[in-house]
């Protein structure tokens, strides 16, 4: 074995994590196929309407593969998915993969800008609140953040939409903007981003504040002080790196919630995206789109968690070794 695979190496850790990621994907898709059995409403009758002939319904069921046993459906789905084929839209016959990947950039843009905004504002506020403990900002943050965290993104979305689009007319009401016009797209992105990010700003700020306060009380910070290191270096270098670890962990878990929040925000702002795509598909029992869409969402979730675990290991050398030794886990 060369050094690349030695115990404690990131590569070895990565291989184990990739294997678990594949397991998660297979598991979640199997569950999804089960759901199509449990959820009331036969897709064929919903699609064809109540007056469809039994023959037509049976034909459609066969086309959708609903008459196959569960394991065959899952196997078939993955066999096709590996070739990049996620099936076709039952209603208009368009390939699902194309529809999902057309919607994906909008959702990713929304999620990334929301997380970016939350991190960019949340971390400095948290740092400031920790360093100036008991200041007006610190006390204000305590009150406001609890309120913000508890407010669902769709409530924020509706409020923002009413105030800034309907009343003040500063921002466009609906859509994602002209595809060729970047400025127009940004303009359309502002309110949905804020709606999605607001709760996270408060959450991240609180998290950074509390973990920073905890870290600042550690003996090794006292060591840094005992050697006269400037307070800025102590907070921004020595303490923040450790204080970021819980924040990063929360972000990873939070991606799922963020995707859920994005769905509401997309519906309210009538933005094209994965959220609205899946939402419409569920209403129509358009299972290929639901499956394809969820597969992509779960993949993103798994991928982000993978990234988070890696950055965790990158931030903390102790984790790096333990995870490598334990052969994955986590």
């Amino acid at each position, binding site marked *: 074995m060369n050094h690349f695979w030695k115990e404690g190496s990131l590569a070895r850790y990565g291989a184990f994590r990739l294997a678990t990621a594949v397991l998660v994907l297979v598991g979640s898709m199997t569950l999804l196929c089960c759901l199509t059995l449990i959820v009331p409403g036969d897709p064929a009758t919903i699609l064809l309407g109540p007056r469809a002939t039994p023959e037509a319904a049976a034909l459609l069921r066969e086309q959708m593969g609903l008459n196959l046993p569960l394991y065959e459906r899952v196997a078939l789905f993955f066999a096709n998915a590996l070739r990049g084929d996620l099936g076709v839209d039952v209603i208009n016959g368009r390939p699902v993969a194309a529809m999902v990947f057309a919607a994906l950039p909008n959702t990713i843009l929304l999620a990334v800008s929301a997380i970016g905004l939350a991190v960019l504002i949340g971390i400095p506020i948290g740092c400031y609140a920790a360093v100036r403990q008991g200041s007006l900002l610190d006390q204000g943050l305590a009150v406001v953040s609890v309120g913000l965290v508890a407010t669902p993104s769709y409530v924020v979305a509706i409020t923002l939409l009413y105030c800034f689009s309907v009343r003040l007319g500063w921002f466009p009401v609906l859509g994602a903007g002209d595809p060729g016009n970047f400025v127009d797209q940004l303009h359309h992105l502002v309110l949905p981003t804020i709606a999605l990010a607001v709760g996270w700003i408060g959450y991240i700020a609180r998290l950074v504040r509390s973990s920073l306060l905890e870290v600042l009380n*550690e*003996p*090794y*910070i*006292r*060591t*840094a*002080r*005992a*050697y*006269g*290191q*400037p307070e800025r*270096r102590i907070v921004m270098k*020595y303490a923040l*790196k*450790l204080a970021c670890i819980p924040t990063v962990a929360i972000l990873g878990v939070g991606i799922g919630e963020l995707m859920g929040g994005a769905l509401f925000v997309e519906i309210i702002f009538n933005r094209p995206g994965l959220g609205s795509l899946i939402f419409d598909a569920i209403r129509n029992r358009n299972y290929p789109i639901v499956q394809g869409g969820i597969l992509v969402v779960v993949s993103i979730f798994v991928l982000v968690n993978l990234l988070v675990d890696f950055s965790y290991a990158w*931030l*903390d*050398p*102790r984790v790096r*070794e333990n995870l490598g030794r334990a052969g994955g886990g986590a």
Partner: protein
Amino acid sequence: MNRETLVEIKNLSVDFSTAKGALHVLRDVSLSIPRNRVVGLVGESGSGKSTLALALLGLLPDNTGEVSGRIELDGENLLDVPPEELRRLRGGRIAMIFQDPMTSLNPVFSIGTQLVDAQRNRHPQLGRRELLKRADEMLKRVGISNPEARLAAYPHQLSGGMRQRVMIAMALLCEPDILIADEPTTALDVTIEAQIVRLLDDLRADFSGSIVLVSHSLGLISELCDEVAVMYAGKVVESAPTKILFGNPRHPYTLALLACEIDPEDEPGEALVTIKGGLPDLIDVPKGCIFAARCPSRFGKCVEEPPLCEVEAGHKSACWLA
């Protein structure tokens, strides 16, 4: 050798604010630390010796209440020095070795980075490469083999004894005038403790500053220190050159401490000697001699507080009997 004073602590009192009221952690402490000597601070837990060490460093905890008196470093009162200037003194003229090497180093930065940053106050003009080179040499001096690899390592990859050597290297890299070592061996295994004591003893020879060694172990103090101050309940009760103190202790508390040391010639099964009673209440401090309640030789006069008086040249004791 004539005794030249480097640090003069005059009537230092420190209170900690607590929910129950002001805790008088240090009361009217006066102590002089001579240049190029090793001074031991000895006393049981809660005697205020660690607080005294932190006060020297200007790093008293957040809940510190009233502080009065003077800590003079070359005549300048450290209690009046503005925070920013005091910060430059730390890691410059004053450095500290902490008790627990397991938690005193930052777990997510390499030893090299931490040793480099610790020197920045002392050598602001040097770059990272030069500072690393100095760190490399110093690690060799404190007995760490393969220093290059250790500089790249993280604290958790080093043993406790090794980490304490790193802490000692960190302190020495600052070439301080005064080095404070707060129970530097307490958290270590006995065998490692012996190694660290030997290292400190070796380094003492070519270290040009003063050392304040805080410890509850009289053995360690007698081995390493030129002078000793015995602390009890926030006061210095006796101070003297080491030989005099151990040969002719004049305070009943010092006598009691010496009696508590485990004598290897004692028969097994013989009861360990302890000092009866506990530390007095430091919020509502009793009047008179602070040790009276536990003192076997107290008498009528002990209701008055005895001053710390010179009983012979260089030997002070705060006892009416001394």
